[in-house]
């Protein structure tokens, strides 16, 4: 049965897209408010290509983490489809879902909260192997040591508990756990945000090495655009549940097409006093609106410096269309016109 299922997957290897998100919605109903819902992900189309790192950025509450949970089938979609390696995972259940999950892993932000304090590091790393009945017990123990070495930790640390490790070391354990089952796709949800600068650099370098070594595909979610630009091949910008721009990591910085992207990029300080003297951040008006009741038309229009209100911006929702460079798309009626 396994052989029969593998055949079509091999045939699809030619498809450069590993994950295809089409019209994905995730609404969280607010109980007692008759039909009201938090529209965390509100119509997202996005592709993640084999072997690339797609950076996903946006302010808190824009739906980045919810999208990550949809992509890894940790949350069911309200509507839409997510195709992973040629298979629509939104309708999978039971054994088939488990088989797909082995191919996708997630690394979380907080290395303190994401490791069970009562389990030894050995148990934490062996758990995924046990779950999927990979190898014999002895092979699993050996694999645990290999994993520790792989992420730059002492392989004899298997009997230690998470509290005996520093934040950076814990994040390495989180990475080792994700690698345990040989996934092809890893979601890094703010994986370096909680770490000290020099430690974050170690983890960033480690993630890059592992990607090269194992031909991994990353969805890298972070609010630090400098880190995202450093790690990613392409970048997608989210605002209030929607993707507003996607582009190559250099094009998005050199020629942003969406005014939100431009504002976001202009607000990041650069570690260079000479540049800082000249830099003029674009201040956005107000704050990110509630995802329960997003603004009409383009949902960025109340804060947009170039919006025509009343007019097309407050009336018509702009679709994500090609603008600017090759492989660049923006959802704006006046893309690039600033």
């Amino acid at each position, binding site marked *: 049965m*396994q052989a029969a299922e593998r055949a079509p997957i091999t045939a699809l290897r030619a498809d450069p897209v590993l994950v295809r998100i089409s019209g994905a919605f995730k609404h969280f109903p607010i109980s007692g408010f008759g039909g009201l819902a938090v529209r965390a992900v509100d119509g997202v189309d996005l592709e993640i290509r084999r072997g690339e790192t797609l950076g996903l950025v946006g302010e*808190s509450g824009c739906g980045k983490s919810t999208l990550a949970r949809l992509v890894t089938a940790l949350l069911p979609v309200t509507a839409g489809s997510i195709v992973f390696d040629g298979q629509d995972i939104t309708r999978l259940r039971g*054994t088939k879902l*488990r*088989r797909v999950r082995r191919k996708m892993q997630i690394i979380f932000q907080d290395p303190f909260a994401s490791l069970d304090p009562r389990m030894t590091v050995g148990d934490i790393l062996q758990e995924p*192997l046990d779950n*999927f*009945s*990979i*190898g014999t017990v002895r*092979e699993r123990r050996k*694999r645990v040591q*290999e994993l520790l*070495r*792989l*992420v*730059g930790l002492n392989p004899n640390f298997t009997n230690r508990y998470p509290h005996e490790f*520093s934040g950076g070391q814990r994040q390495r354990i989180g990475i080792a756990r994700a690698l345990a*089952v*040989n996934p092809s796709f890893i979601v890094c949800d703010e994986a370096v945000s909680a770490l*000290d*600068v*020099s*430690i*974050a*650099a*170690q983890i*960033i*370098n*480690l993630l*890059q*090495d592992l990607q090269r*070594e*194992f031909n991994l595909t990353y969805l890298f979610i972070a*609010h630090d*655009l*400098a880190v995202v*630009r*450093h790690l990613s091949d392409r970048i997608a910008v989210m605002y209030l549940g929607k993707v507003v721009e996607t582009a190559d*990591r*250099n094009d998005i910085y050199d020629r942003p097409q969406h005014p939100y992207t431009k*504002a*976001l*990029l*202009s*607000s*990041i*300080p*650069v*570690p*260079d*006093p000479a*540049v*800082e003297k000249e*830099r003029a*951040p674009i*201040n*956005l008006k*107000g*704050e990110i609106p509630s995802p329960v009741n997003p603004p009409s038309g383009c949902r960025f229009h109340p804060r947009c410096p170039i919006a025509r209100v009343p007019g097309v911006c407050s009336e018509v929702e702009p679709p994500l269309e090609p603008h600017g460079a090759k492989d660049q798309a923006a959802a704006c009626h006046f893309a690039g016109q600033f």
Partner: protein
Amino acid sequence: MPQTLLQVEDLHTQFFTSRGVVRAVDGVTFHVDAGETLGVVGESGCGKTMTALSILRLVPDPGKITSGRILFRGREVTKMTDEEIRDFRGNDVAMIFQDPMTSLNPVTKIGRQIEEAMTAHERFTETLARGRVIELLKRVRVPAAESRVNDYPHQFSGGMRQRAMIAMGLSNEPSLLIADEPTTALDVTVQAQIIQLMKQLNRELGTAMMLITHNMALVASLCQRVVVMYAGRIVEEGPVEQIFNSPQHPYTWSLLRSVPRVDEARKDRLVSIRGLPPDLSNPPPGCKFHPRCPFVIDKCKTDPEPSLSEVGVNQVARCWVLMRNVTEEGVEAAKASALSKDAAAKLKAPVMEVEGNAGG
């Protein structure tokens, strides 16, 4: 010659724990001039926050200032009576913290909390304080300040709470504001607004600022002078342009190269500082940075720690080697070795094939 506001001399703050004495601040000397912005940078646990808390005499138990002098406008802070220190905090020096949610009282209205900060010092009567609250909230650019004074902290967003904290810090018109990671918990767009606000306040009110952060970009944006701390010691100090353009201590150099820049296309790998900061109850002999330093020589391990010596105009560093004596090849080699340690160990590791046997 600018007027010196704060002068810290050979400050030692130690924690007496069952594991021994932790030297959190270990002989720190620096000053803050009136109206200037000083950045204090370094990794977590290098003594930045403890230095700030020492200045306010707020070191938590079991910590104590064991020696050194803290002079504020010539007055010795370590010798102040309880009443004097209460007057000093807030009136002369105010501090804002990283997390604006836990620093505000959740059951008291924002306006009332700012009033309390003012009336506590008896500089303002209650009526006068109430009148000033709205003015203060306007000054920190809280929109619709007239109605928002009656809000509770949970009705404020993260950025607004930090603005309210800054308003509270400024309420008694201190001459020095210590900001400990004021934007770390905030979104980038909000961070930009807070940075801009702090710049404007520094210009408009002439309040000196001491910014404690690990974010080098923030320092480049806000500060005129920088102090770099490592393991409870100052390892380098100087004007911001010099520190960024020609850092002389390998720690400063590494810190600057460990962060990616958003305005640059990916060039090469980040420099990561190997290992971890030392245990401050048992620091390494010699230069405290030597176990992690890519340019270490034998002298660093055996000789006593070097003193802070002049390496440029108003720039001092504590290092036997200094970056200007490191050759181009040395720098390249250091970049390579910083990664090969990790990379070599990893790439040698055989990976067990775990195909098959999967699923139910």
